[in-house]
């Protein structure tokens, strides 16, 4: 199901975190192509840089070196408003800790992306349409009966479903899932992944899932293994080798 032209292309991505005067390299030269309709699993142990890669692809963070391209357009160094807009409408995010806003109900949480986008006037104009769509999405993830509950009144699985509905609200082209099952038991986790697969299959939604759990990977998925900041088997030489001194510190973190 691959296309010639990648939807998202990652080229020679380097990223290091600076803590005081110490530089902690995380990614050293990652190349990756994501095609429309992919279900891409990024596997790796903790500390392998898989979350960082996801953040860089989702424009939440900026690389030290290398580029991220969406439909051939560089987005990693795009101006702030452009990247805000991308996160709002083109990308959807699901996190391990759900990251719902505790003051808002399930429905309101799902409505946050269009609220961010719309002006007050626009909201009065289109609010009811958004509300309808948010309700439909919550019904689709099986939470039609939980619309007006606050996150603290929901279970972990339910919260993750709300997060999925929120991610879908902006009709994204790519859905990033960062350890979506990390905080759930096996059964709930499988339900969530099943939901994501369903979205991928039925809506041809491109899915990039980061996980350390091999059991979640299906035979049809594209799998990329990330080891110590490099894609396993990739031949790109790292631009910057971690020093012997720095490595243990990195692992300790």
């Amino acid at each position, binding site marked *: 199901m691959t296309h010639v032209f990648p939807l998202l292309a990652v080229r020679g991505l380097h990223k290091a975190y600076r803590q005081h005067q110490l530089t902690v390299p995380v990614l050293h030269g990652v190349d990756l192509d994501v095609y429309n309709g992919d279900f891409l699993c990024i596997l790796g142990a903790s500390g392998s840089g898989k979350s960082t890669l996801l953040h860089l692809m989702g424009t939440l*963070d900026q690389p030290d070196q290398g580029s991220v391209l969406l439909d051939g357009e560089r987005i990693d160094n795009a101006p702030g408003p452009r990247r805000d*807009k991308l*996160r709002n409408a083109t990308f959807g*995010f699901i996190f391990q800790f759900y990251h719902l*806003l*505790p*003051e808002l109900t399930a429905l309101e949480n799902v409505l946050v*992306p269009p609220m*961010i986008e719309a002006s007050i006037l626009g909201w009065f104009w289109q609010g009811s349409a958004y509300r309808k769509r948010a309700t439909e999405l919550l019904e689709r993830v099986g939470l039609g009966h939980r619309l007006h509950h606050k996150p603290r009144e929901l279970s972990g699985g339910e919260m993750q479903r709300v997060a999925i509905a929120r991610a879908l609200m902006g009709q994204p082209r790519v859905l990033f899932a960062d350890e979506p099952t990390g905080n759930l038991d096996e059964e709930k986790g499988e339900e969530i992944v099943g939901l994501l697969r369903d979205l991928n299959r039925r809506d041809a939604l491109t899915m990039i899932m980061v996980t350390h759990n091999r059991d979640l990977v299906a035979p049809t998925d594209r799998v990329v293994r990330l080891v110590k900041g490099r894609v396993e088997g990739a031949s790109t030489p790292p631009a910057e080798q971690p020093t012997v001194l720095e490595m243990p510190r990195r692992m300790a973190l």
Partner: protein
Amino acid sequence: MYKLLLCWRYLRTRYLAMVCIVSVMLGVATLIVVNAVMGGFSTKLRERLHGLLSDVVLEAYTYDGFGNYEGKIELIRHDPFLADKIIAMAPTLESFAMIQFGYNGNPFYQRAQLIGIELESRSAIGGFAEHIVLRKGKPQFILDEVATQRVAAQKKQPLEIPLAVPPFPGQKIDAPEGIELPKVDSLKPIPTPPPSQNQEFVPEFCILGHAMAFRRVELPDKPAKDICLIQPGDDVVLTTITGGRLSPVFGRFTVCDYFKSDMSEYDSNYVYVPLSYLQKLRSMEGRVTSIQIRLKDERNKQPVVDRLKYLFGDSLQVMTWEDKQGPLLAAISIEKGILNVLLFLIIAVAGFGILAIFSMIVVEKTRDIGILKALGASNSGVLQIFLGYGLLLGLVGALFGSGLGLLITAYVNEIEATLSWATGLEVFPRKIYYFDRIPTDIQTYQVVLINVGAIGIAVLFSVLPALRAALLHPVRALRYE
């Protein structure tokens, strides 16, 4: 849109925010109450001060006064520029004096300001007739019926301890034949001369400052009581000086009424007597010390003052009532200004509270800020959330503060009474102040200014935490536990 929703939710769910609101509220309420009370005092005081003083005074430099006052009044009246600007003019002869009277056989001495007036013209100036106690609005230099009867009864049956002050040597009254006038002795009760049988002595009348006639006596365990020292019909002796030669003269006056302006300075000093008699007593026939002038438009004094200065040059001084009370008015306005600065510091303190609490809320909301940014919220959007939050806190605080302040102002006297009753202390000692009730004066522009200031401070102090929130890195914020 999310900004509004989140501001509102944060406001409703954060108890810390309530602390901010309460501190802003208290600051605003304090400022409003203090301004209202101080404004009340100053307005009332100005009113009183102005009430007793005419708009413009044409005054001699010395107690000798100036002659031909009728001519001067005519001159002003027929001046083409002044004629339509002046309502009334009153010639006045002022002098310091010593007042003596007896009570329970004890002599009292006191300094007094002796003012000779024509009742009609002085009443037209204002600030006089309405402060007269017995014949309010219609002052007259004669005894009323009650006093006349009392005096008549006294004459028939003198009191055992006489109240009246004896005549002094040199005074033009005819003592009855065969009765020796007593010597003045301040240490002993002075017997009054028996009433004249054959020739009725007709004294001059005077209107006495209320505080001179009444003394407040405070006894332990008893409420304070006003004792009347001089009743209408009683006599007082006023000693003053003649014009020019400065030799002492005195006259005996019968008190016929009181003057009560509630300005203790005036009530405890002023004695009004008929102008013509005072002129005679002081050998100053045809002379007065000042001409008081009432204008049609009080606010438009300056042209009148300039014209009067042109007419009379340096021979007389022309003063407005504010000139006469300048230092007091300036003191009040300076006091008010300083107090306002100090009280605004209270709101500034509330501002630091907002700063601290906001910083805490930003830390607490770090993860939420990360989420919002991950969902596409811009830096300025996050900034606006927290600025809007500050604005909302300020707004709600100012609103409640204004309500509280206006409520306290409206019931300030009741609150004072309750406080006095509860603590047993007199919060507002009426003896010291000029007023029975705490006066208040709420100026709309002041309330608006205080509100704007408070809201401004709330927003100003939320800028720093809001900036911190806006510049949070989304990934670091999301990782924050």
